[in-house]
């Protein structure tokens, strides 16, 4: 029953992705350049998608392995050293550039761990530890890494456009993607196979960070383009 609902949700997400897929993402010849509002829309859609996938992954795991969803393993995530605004007041007080920077760092920090997660899940599937859920989970993990990569590129473009339009008060250079690499990401999670507990923690952290990113993007959108959507 739950499996079916997950499949349905996955299908819905795919449909959403198709519907929201950018026609001209990178300014090919003959394509009109998207406006900032368009960029924001696409980014928001991507972040929603990402958040949905992460929620599915986590809840899927929880259901099969841990009956009580209140049980949490480690509380620490590998992105703990990225300072993020923790409440509404802090989020409103922070500058737009800093907020964009935080978003980009968060997104950049998940590139490697997600690929590790995918590999680990695939190995689990091959070992027949999991049954059906592991296969779908590994696919979702792969999809998740793709979505996150696209989102990061989209936010970069959006940041460039915002800088051009003068949305940033300080002409601070937006952090480059390469800097967002976390050296601790490799050390934080064990190389090679991750235990199921580690999977769970990673998925919990993933869900949390994707929610942060979605919220920050929403704040950024409403502060830059106060329109009908806010």
């Amino acid at each position, binding site marked *: 029953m739950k499996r079916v609902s997950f499949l349905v949700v996955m299908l819905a997400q795919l449909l*959403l992705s198709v519907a929201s897929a950018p026609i001209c993402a990178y300014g090919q010849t003959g394509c009109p350049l998207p406006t900032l509002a368009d960029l924001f829309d696409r980014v928001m859609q991507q972040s*929603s998608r990402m*958040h*949905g996938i992460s*929620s599915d992954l986590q809840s899927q795991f929880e259901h099969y392995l841990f*009956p009580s969803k*209140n*049980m*949490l393993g480690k*509380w*620490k995530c590998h992105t*703990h*050293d990225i300072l*993020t605004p*923790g*409440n*509404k*007041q802090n*989020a*409103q007080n922070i500058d737009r550039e800093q907020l964009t920077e935080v978003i980009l760092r968060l997104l950049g920090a998940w590139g490697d761990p997600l690929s590790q997660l995918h590999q680990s899940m695939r190995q689990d599937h091959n070992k027949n530890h999991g049954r059906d859920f592991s296969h779908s989970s590994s696919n979702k993990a792969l999809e998740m890494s793709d979505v996150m990569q696209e989102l990061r590129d989209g936010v970069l473009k959006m940041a460039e456009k915002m800088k051009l339009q003068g949305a940033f008060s300080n002409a601070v250079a937006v952090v480059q993607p390469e800097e967002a690499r976390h050296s601790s990401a490799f050390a934080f999670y064990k190389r090679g196979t991750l235990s199921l507990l580690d999977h769970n923690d990673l998925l919990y952290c993933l869900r*949390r960070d994707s*929610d*942060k990113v*979605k*919220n920050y993007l*929403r*704040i*950024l*959108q*409403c*502060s830059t383009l*106060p329109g009908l*959507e*806010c």
Partner: protein
Amino acid sequence: MTLRANIMAAASSPSSSLLLLLLTSSSPWLPSLTLAYVSDWHHMTPSAPVEPHFTECISRDQVTFSCWWSPGSFHNLTDPGMLKVYYQKRDIDSPTKTEWKECPEYFHSRRECFFDRNHTVIWTPYCLQLRSRDNITYFNTDYCFTVENIVRPDPPVSLNWTCLNVSPSGLNYDVMVMWEPPPSADVSVGWMNVVYEVQYRERNSSNWETLEVQLEPQTQQTIYGLHLDKEYEVHIRCSMKAFSKFGEFSESIFIQVSEIPTKDSFSLLTLVIVLAIVAAAILIMWIVVSQQHRLMVILLPPVPVPKIKGVDPELLKKGKLDELNFILSSGDLVSGPMYSPDFYQDEPWVEFIEVDVKDSDAGEKEDIQASDTERLLGGSQPARHRVGCSNVPSFPDRECAYDLNGPAEDGTTLNCMLPGQPDDRLASLCVDSERGERLPVPSQTSGPQTWVNTDFYAQVSNVMPFGGVVLSPGQQLRTQEGAPASNEDVKEANKKSQEKNKQKEPQFQLPVLEPDTVSRTQQMIPPLYCSIPAESYQSAEPQPAAEASRSPYDSPDSPQAQHFSPVADYTVVQELDSQRGVLLDPPSLQSASSCLSQHPLKSVHALPTGYVTPDLQGVLLP
């Protein structure tokens, strides 16, 4: 295993155990399991106390949150203050060190622990614990969560509805429901992304119809297909986007739309009016179609167009001059008055231009030049297939065209040469190429034929006993007055052709028409007229000039008066010019009546239709 664990967890409360008993009694496949966990349950204390626990933690605005607890079956802990809430916040800074702090704000009446904004951190795990007053007993269950996962937004406010439209059948209608986001949720900043779920039901039913949860936040929703005269109840609740926890439902609003009775009668009236209009339109159409011809005559009276009897009206259209020339020159018209089809059978009122077709070789302009009058008069003409002047005595060889009008004009006679005329006159009559060689050419460029025709239509003044006819030329005035409209056009064409003729060698000259030529041809036979005596010619001298003004080959500087010569009533169409002009024969000059003109009739084959009426034909023909 997992099922068992679930059942164990569920069996912690007595009510759930009763439910399980009922379940096991009803379903047959659970007996083994039932035995198993019943035994387990027996291991537990029969009156196992329910520990104090947290019932729920909720955040409404993602800024603060509250937690409610329950003392469970420990009745001695129900008093406020007996239980304390401690929470643990896993900060980033201190991941390993955990401190348990007491609840910042208690609401003992509600057994609520409230965390204000200073104590609330999002995306940070919280664990709550209940302890006894003396901090000794720690109850096992830790209630752990992160704040973003416990958000249940407040319901929306200011619900309102409008009727969008009514179906054509008048039974269903669509409604748009509008509302505003809850004031506690800060949507404008973007801190909370709230989506809504709308439910509605009929007043009496107990099942709620649920519309799909919105994917994007919208503060309005359309409900389709509501029935008239039924009351509906609508309420809405909120949730965070991509989360599954909903807030409470809003207050209900009631929708009811009653019937609009006037619409039916209005539509009926319009239907009747439309039908009446359609019937009237059909009636008018029928009248128009049935009386089409009459209407056409009334509205569009027929315009006279050129119609030549015996000639297909198609040929008279623009651009078909060659065919017409061919027909006219070949003499089909003349030859077959009986045979040529009557193109105008249905238009008896049509007035015709009756063309005199020369019986000459087709396409040679010289041939066309000779007129019927020539044929009438021209007995001295050689036996060429020329107009008229062939052997004298043979009437059939002579062609003359004349119209036997009523003797309306008196005194106009066309004197034609008769066979009995002296030869010199005859000789003077007929000038053709052969003759023309002998005679001084009226002009240097005189063509082979210098005959100038008399009119097609010349009044017969007298009929000779031997069958000849004395024709009289038309009067000038009358001709001028009675000139048909086509004459004017013809004059213009004549002018044109005259100019043209001036440019190139005139194929023939009408010596009578040019004063100089006239003078030169004084000794000549006056080309037009058979027996014009010299004196009459003299008198007629100004005539040609006069006529010249109206003839195609007129010289422009012939300013002679026009009152002298009698002009024929009808002007012979000499030729159809290539420039679409009709060349008229200058009318005949008045001549002294000394010359009796016996007009030999044309041969039958050359006689154009209409020129000779049947009764006169019998008279005229020998």
